[in-house]
């Protein structure tokens, strides 16, 4: 029988992959995608808890909806930035986007 910790393992794994992606990816869009993964991991966790711990209340699911909306907004702005960076620097290699360096 699938219990809560199964889902937690799943979301943790997904989140870990997301972290790896965010830190290791050289391509800005790749980083954004990894962020999306992490957010999904969070959603899984939310719903898992909603399903197992507090089946009667819907906070988990409502919260998941909000996470999704925020994720959407975030990715939109992220990509706009990436495009802008690309337009200015002809590449979106995160390592080289270090103008904020000293």
């Amino acid at each position, binding site marked *: 029988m699938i219990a809560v910790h199964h889902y937690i393992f*799943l979301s943790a794994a997904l989140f*870990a992959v997301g972290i790896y992606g965010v830190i290791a990816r050289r*391509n800005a869009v*790749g980083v954004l995608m990894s962020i999306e*993964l992490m957010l999904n991991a969070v959603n899984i966790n939310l719903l898992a808890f909603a399903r197992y711990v507090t089946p009667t209340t819907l906070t988990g699911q409502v919260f998941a909806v909000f996470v999704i*909306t925020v994720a959407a*907004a975030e990715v*939109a702005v992220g990509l*706009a930035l990436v495009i802008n960076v690309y337009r200015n620097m002809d590449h979106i290699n995160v*390592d080289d986007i270090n103008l904020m360096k000293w």
Partner: protein
Amino acid sequence: MDWHTCSFYVLSVMILGSALMVVSLRNIVHCALFLAFTFMGVAGVFALLHAEFLAAVQVLIYVGAITVLILFAVMLTQKTIGISLKQTNRLAPLAVLSAVTFLCMIAVIALNTTFPTSGQHTVAVSTQTIGSAILGNGSYVVPFEVASILLLAAMVGAIVIARGQDN
């Protein structure tokens, strides 16, 4: 092994596999594709967790909108796709280390803590109930409004940033 556990394992394998692909593939378009598959897998998990509405929303927004957006972004940043340069930077080992530590930590925590799972059966979660939960009394109206404003702001921001200076 009823269908529920079986489908859970199938879905988690699908999700983690495609997630790994997203993270490790050299060709960014393939990553985007696998990202779409991950999202569908997650939607499936949602369905397993009796959150059909969310599964639908997940599919609609993530797969339908975000992946498309990413694809668009990928295509707009055309040049990088061509040259398949090393996709991971020098922080990769550190990243792996941190990911693994994270995973072990969560595993340890999950195993050690006993979650107060309550026996009742989940209430029939339909759009009706979610709708009332969001907009009904004692509900999340305020966060809903804030979310809407956030979306508006993001939209305007994205347009302004991406529009560039040409016109």
